[in-house]
């Protein structure tokens, strides 16, 4: 049920030179006909399988509607035949042939009867038809007073009141408002899941991309292309300017993403590549990372002006963002044959996790419709990963700040205000000092967003990484220190690992790195000698008298570093330390060691988060990723039982003094509140407010 097969369909209309010619044709048959055949469809062959959703696109007059009419059976093909199995429902040219003088109810009855429903069935179904159409009292008004949107609502509701085996829709839904389009598309999707074959003509690219499994492209009555929606839509966009005699080509490179290019060729793009800010070619980048698209352009003819357009498209071919040098006011003028140009387009990959492609075009002016030198879709594909952003959904990244305040009784002056933190930000008497030890990949956005309130020091033994970060963070508030910290001054071996982020002063356990695929990143690949210093020595040498917050993640040497900073720790309000439960590096301190020591320094554990488990194999109840890595925060429900062995977590410690009920000065309180607000720990602020209340009341 629901198979459509179209075999050798062709359709021609007879065109007579004058009105009498037809009469003559009828009455005086002779060998040569008096009409000419105008072919609107030729040689159409395709098969649509049950449950498939197929879109038909093409310019106006390409024969889309005629093809649908032939498939529906209201028009006969001149040659060829169509086979359809199952119950077919078609919405052709906005409706079901409603009679303008009859009421909606009468029309529903009549069209419904024509669709094969009995009068009794229709009276049963009428309620659900009207409920879905939401046309209210209009049901008993003549259809001629309906808006076209209302007609479509009623027609669609009637057509789809029961699930047909084949649903054919010709552009009808574009008439409806956005609300009804949503509603009808979700019904279409629902039916499609249940096995309805869908055939759709639309100019709505979004609809085609989101619903169809396959798209047929008609051009001047012929089927010129058939394939995945992204591929055909890209080709179609390129085809829109094809009348300028451009060469249109499409190829499928190894990565499987379709590459479409077209253009008249006066200027061509030789090479399109994606680079990080150090100039390394990359194909996977992190959310928010600044990257550059580099385009090499060769001028093949003398041309008056040249505009480069560049944009990022998602997996479905939908443009995420893009602009061109016309809009940025950088049009190149008077180019001569043989010149080469390099364009570098820098942007932040504020994109959701997933796969994206680069679109680039060379045009004369702001649009490719006028003159299109070279146009490339899918030139380059890259992946976006989330490394340091909070878990988020959607196709673009944007920092969201949740300001949460618990509403309390009237007399709580300190904390009741939901904008409490901004008030405290104003009364800070100094900047908060943050030290990030092991800062490869950069600092948390939360500190950078409030860079006026924070002084950040970052430590990483990799000098190159420090230089990169220095370039990236131009803010005065950031200082990069290319040093290795430890408990004592001295020379140590740095074990460089496959992934530089896993490099450590401790040797990684070769058994683990060999046997756990997810730990392959920590495989030892080289060693270098580094000089170490201690946090205390560094602080005194650099006149850093107070450190408010330490984040430390040094692959096993966290405890050593903390021990080298006991003086500094006296002023620290909070410390976030990565703790191991099962060592990955030899001689690594485990959680209990760190916990003992920090408690002895006056800290208490506030929370553990981001517990990471590894397992060697998959689990029994859940298909898991290649790397068998689980982040409790992300998979807490799925993997509570089968997550594998616990390896590490982040431990958040807070100084006992801060949490105590002892009355503190307003300046101190302000520092606490701004710090914990920025860290995203409203529960601490809550605790502070309660503690303070107890004392004041």
């Amino acid at each position, binding site marked *: 049920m629901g198979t459509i097969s179209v075999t050798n369909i062709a359709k021609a209309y*007879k065109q007579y030179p004058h009105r009498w010619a037809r009469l003559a044709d009828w009455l005086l048959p002779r060998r040569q006909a008096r009409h000419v055949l105008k072919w609107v469809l030729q040689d159409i062959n395709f098969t649509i399988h049950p449950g498939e959703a197929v879109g038909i696109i093409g310019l106006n007059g390409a024969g889309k509607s005629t093809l649908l*009419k032939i498939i529906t059976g*209201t028009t006969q093909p001149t040659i060829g035949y169509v086979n359809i199995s199952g119950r077919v429902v078609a919405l052709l040219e906005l409706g*079901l*042939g409603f009679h303008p*003088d009859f009421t909606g109810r009468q029309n529903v009855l*009549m069209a419904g*009867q*024509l669709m094969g429903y*009995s009068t009794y069935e229709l009276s049963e179904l009428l309620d659900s038809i009207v409920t879905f159409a939401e046309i209210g009292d209009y049901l008993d008004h003549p259809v001629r007073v309906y808006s076209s949107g209302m007609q479509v609502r009623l027609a669609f509701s009637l057509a789809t009141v029961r699930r047909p085996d084949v649903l054919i829709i010709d552009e009808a839904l574009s008439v409806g408002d956005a609300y009804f389009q949503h509603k009808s598309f979700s019904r279409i999707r629902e039916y499609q899941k249940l096995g309805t074959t869908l055939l759709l003509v639309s100019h709505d690219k979004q609809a085609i991309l989101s619903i169809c499994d396959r798209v047929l492209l008609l051009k001047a009555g012929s089927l010129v292309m058939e394939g995945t929606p992204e591929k055909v839509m890209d080709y179609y966009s390129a085809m829109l300017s094809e009348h300028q005699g451009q060469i249109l080509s499409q190829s499928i490179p190894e990565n499987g993403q379709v590459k479409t290019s077209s253009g008249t060729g006066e200027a061509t793009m030789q090479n399109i590549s994606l680079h990080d800010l150090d100039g390394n070619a990359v194909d996977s980048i992190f959310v928010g990372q600044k990257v550059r698209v580099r385009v090499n352009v060769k001028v093949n003819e003398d041309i008056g002006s040249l505009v480069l357009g560049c944009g990022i498209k998602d997996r479905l071919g939908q443009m995420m963002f893009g602009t061109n040098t016309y809009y940025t006011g950088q049009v190149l003028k008077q180019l001569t044959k043989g010149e080469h140009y390099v364009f570098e387009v820098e942007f932040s990959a504020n994109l959701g996790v997933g796969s994206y492609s680069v679109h680039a075009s060379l045009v004369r002016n702001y649009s490719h419709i006028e003159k299109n030198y070279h146009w490339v879709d899918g030139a380059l594909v890259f992946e976006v990963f989330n490394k340091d952003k909070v878990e988020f959904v959607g196709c673009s990244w944007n920092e969201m700040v949740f300001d949460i305040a618990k509403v309390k009784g009237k007399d709580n002056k300190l904390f009741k205000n939901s904008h409490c933190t901004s008030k405290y930000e104003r009364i800070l008497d100094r900047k908060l000092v943050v030290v990030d030890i092991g800062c490869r990949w950069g600092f948390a956005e939360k500190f950078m967003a409030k860079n006026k309130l924070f002084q950040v020091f970052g430590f990483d033994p990799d000098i190159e990484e420090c230089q990169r970060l220095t370039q990236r963070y131009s803010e005065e508030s950031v200082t990069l220190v290319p040093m290795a910290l430890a408990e004592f001054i001295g020379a140590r071996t740095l074990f460089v690992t496959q992934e530089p982020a896993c490099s450590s002063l401790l040797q990684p356990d070769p058994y683990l790195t060999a046997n756990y695929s997810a730990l392959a990143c920590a495989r030892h690949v080289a060693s270098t000698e580094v000089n170490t210093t201690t946090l205390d020595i560094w602080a005194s040498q650099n006149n850093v008298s107070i450190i408010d917050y330490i984040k430390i993640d040094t692959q096993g040497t966290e405890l050593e570093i903390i021990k080298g900073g006991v003086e500094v720790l006296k002023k620290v309000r909070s410390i976030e330390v990565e703790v191991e439960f099962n060592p990955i590096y030899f001689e690594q301190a485990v959680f209990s060691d760190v916990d003992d020591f920090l408690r002895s320094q006056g800290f208490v554990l506030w929370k553990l988060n981001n517990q990471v488990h590894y397992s060697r194999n998959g689990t029994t109840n859940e298909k898991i990723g290649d790397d068998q890595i689980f982040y409790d925060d992300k998979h807490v429900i799925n993997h509570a039982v089968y997550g594998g062995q616990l390896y590490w977590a982040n431990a958040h410690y807070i100084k006992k003094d801060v949490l105590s009920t002892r009355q503190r000065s307003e300046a101190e309180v302000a520092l606490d509140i701004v710090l914990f607000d920025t860290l995203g720990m409203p529960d601490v602020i809550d605790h502070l407010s309660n503690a303070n209340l107890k004392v004041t009341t």
Partner: protein
Amino acid sequence: MKLIKSVWSYRDFILGSVKKEFQFKYKNSLLGPSWAVINPLAMIIVYTVIFSQVMRAKVPGGESTFGYSIYLCAGILSWGLFNEIVSRAQHMFLENANLMKKIKFPKICIPTIVVINAMISFLIIFGLFSLFLLATGNFPGVTFLALIPLLIVLIAFAIGLGMTLGIINVFFRDVAHVFGIFLQFWFWLTPIVYPINALPAVVANFMVLNPMAPLIAGFQNVLLLNHWPNWVDLLYPLILAALLCLQCNSLLHKHGADMMDEL
């Protein structure tokens, strides 16, 4: 057989359309379906007054008080049925173009609706006429049954002609105009208002060419004279009806696809 089957499977649509059309015809009128009776009644009165009273026309066997009226009614009512079917049928494809272009259904449904609609109007007025005959003691008796084959031949002839015209009319709109005029002549060239013996002998000889003449005569014989119709004379319209129906079947085959494109 296939035709009957497809008509049967679309019976709900056909009956619904008939009902709707009937309602629609009298939708914004105060007297409603009474017009279906008043119209022909007025016509009968006019003709009765003019021909039997003013012009003193007499019909053979119609010497009684209502003789001429019965003669006239028999002719006019049956002609009315014929006229209704043919004129509606020649426009039916154009009128239903909107529907035919949007939904696929057997084309035979449309003429069926036309016939049923015409039959309903006919039966209403003919029922009243029969009551009148009963009341005045002029009811013909068992020969009344002869009306059934007469009606079948009349309807077959009318729909065959009407559909043929309807198809041609899609391509050449002149047909409807031409045939409108032609019907006027045809009405007056058929002995409906006047008796056949009122015609000069030369003209009367040509009457054998008129397929409607034996049909109408059949009605008049049954209703006025209580005679069985002349069955042999009816062969001519019957054969013509069959030919027309075949003709329009072949027209649909040959030009059906073109017709859909033209609509």
